[in-house]
């Protein structure tokens, strides 16, 4: 029943920190949750692998804290830290595309995992859209890293996002179509990724089997 620590991808931390995190998962009140939150967020901004799955460990800590004493110190700290980083996202992007991409991956992962009564957290909807729109801007489309991040997030949470706000999804896809058609200097990989995501959404957030064959079976022939 218990998730092995592997599921949380905490191997990249030093041993002391791993112990701290494991304790936080089992007995949240016995640790300094603000510190734990800081550690997780800082790592998510550096480590692409971790940022893709950090939502899961956050989810477990939030649940554990709520169950233990109805607290939400961890969640509050996490959200406010996310908000802080969100405010400074343009500077982050200017400083390091990789860090920016990690941030977007992380916030989308949190959006995916941390629900309130099975509904996405309202406070995150617009910020997530803002991040994706930024990735769909002409200057960002020139970087394969950013395009890759964009389509990955849309695969994971696109359907949910559309459900909570379809208008913004429409706006996002206007930008993507424009980018695909008009943007000069896009790499062929970038164009491929964009075409795939356009088809993906048009197919109701899934690819037909033929489309899937086109995009994903390189090995077949």
């Amino acid at each position, binding site marked *: 029943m218990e998730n092995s620590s592997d599921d949380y991808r905490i191997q990249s931390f030093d041993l002391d920190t791993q112990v701290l995190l494991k304790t936080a998962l089992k007995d949240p009140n016995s640790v300094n949750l*603000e510190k734990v939150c800081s550690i997780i967020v800082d790592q998510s901004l550096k480590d692409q692998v971790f940022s893709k799955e950090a939502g899961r460990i956050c989810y477990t800590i939030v649940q554990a804290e709520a169950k233990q004493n109805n*607290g939400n110190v961890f969640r509050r700290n996490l959200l*406010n830290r996310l908000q802080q980083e969100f405010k400074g996202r343009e500077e982050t992007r200017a400083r390091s595309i990789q860090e920016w991409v990690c941030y977007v991956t992380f916030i989308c992962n949190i959006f995916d995992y941390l629900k309130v009564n099975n509904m996405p957290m309202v406070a995150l909807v617009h910020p997530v859209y803002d991040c994706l729109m930024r990735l769909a801007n002409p200057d960002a489309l020139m970087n394969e890293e950013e395009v890759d991040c964009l389509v990955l997030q849309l695969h994971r949470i696109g359907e949910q996002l559309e459900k909570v706000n379809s208008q913004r999804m429409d706006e996002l896809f206007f930008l993507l179509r424009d980018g695909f058609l008009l943007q000069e200097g896009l790499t062929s990989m970038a164009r491929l990724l964009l075409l795939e995501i356009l088809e993906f959404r048009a197919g109701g957030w899934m690819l037909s089997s033929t489309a899937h064959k086109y995009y994903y079976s390189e090995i077949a022939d």
Partner: protein
Amino acid sequence: MSDWKRDRRRGAHSEERESRSVGLSRWSHCRKRGVDGNLRSSSKVDGREKDNDRHIEGSHRYPDGRHSSFTTPESTGPVTRCSQQADWGSQVEDDEMRRDVHRDMQRYRRRILGAEVTERERKTSSGSSESNDSKEGDNIETDEAVLLRRQKQINYGKNTLAYDRYIKEVPKHMRQAGIHPKTPNKFRKYSRRSWDQQIKLWKVKLHAWDPPSENGLNEVLDNIEEPDLGDVMDIELDFPSLADSQNASVSLRTHLLSVEDDDCLGTPVKVQRTESTVEADMA
């Protein structure tokens, strides 16, 4: 005695002001969370003092040293100076509370309507001719703003060490009406004053389960001269006006202490008497 009265007159808000400026007020050891919303552990008192100072220093301050956020009775965590809550943590908490309140309402409705159906069936089968109109279903408070406000007040009362100790000590099935505090029902229609009064009395009753303090609180209260309340308690107290109720809660509180001093258990008989006068009034 005079120190005591001065504090009570300042009212409940003084608690917030005190913990804002210093970090520890007389009652802060009863509060489950500090000004920054972090959980306090009940075991450490002195250690906690330092921790709280650190929390306060750590939280954002304006250049002139003013705090940028406080935990007020109406919030579940620190809120900014303006009522607009821009931080995501608070937004999510508010949204969660709204959803919880709506979900509670669905459950309550089902429970009430279910009970009414059985009640009606029982009446018709027994041939009763009572036109006893206790149709709770028609009398549910549905205004979201009201429900949210009430829920916040309830949360504030539940966010205390006293409440934690109370629910651990007295399971629901062991609770006796009048003796044990009961959370006011937010779905019943009450006037604003009536509701606020119920909350106030409920919280006063909960104080009986406050953890013992190490900072001389009990000494201070012991030093208050206790009048002989025996005869006074025989007089029916008239609760409605708030001015009176404050005095009443003073006598209630000192009475609770004298009960403790006499080695009697908890809050039984004397609280029960005041409670019954209140209920007669509220009915």
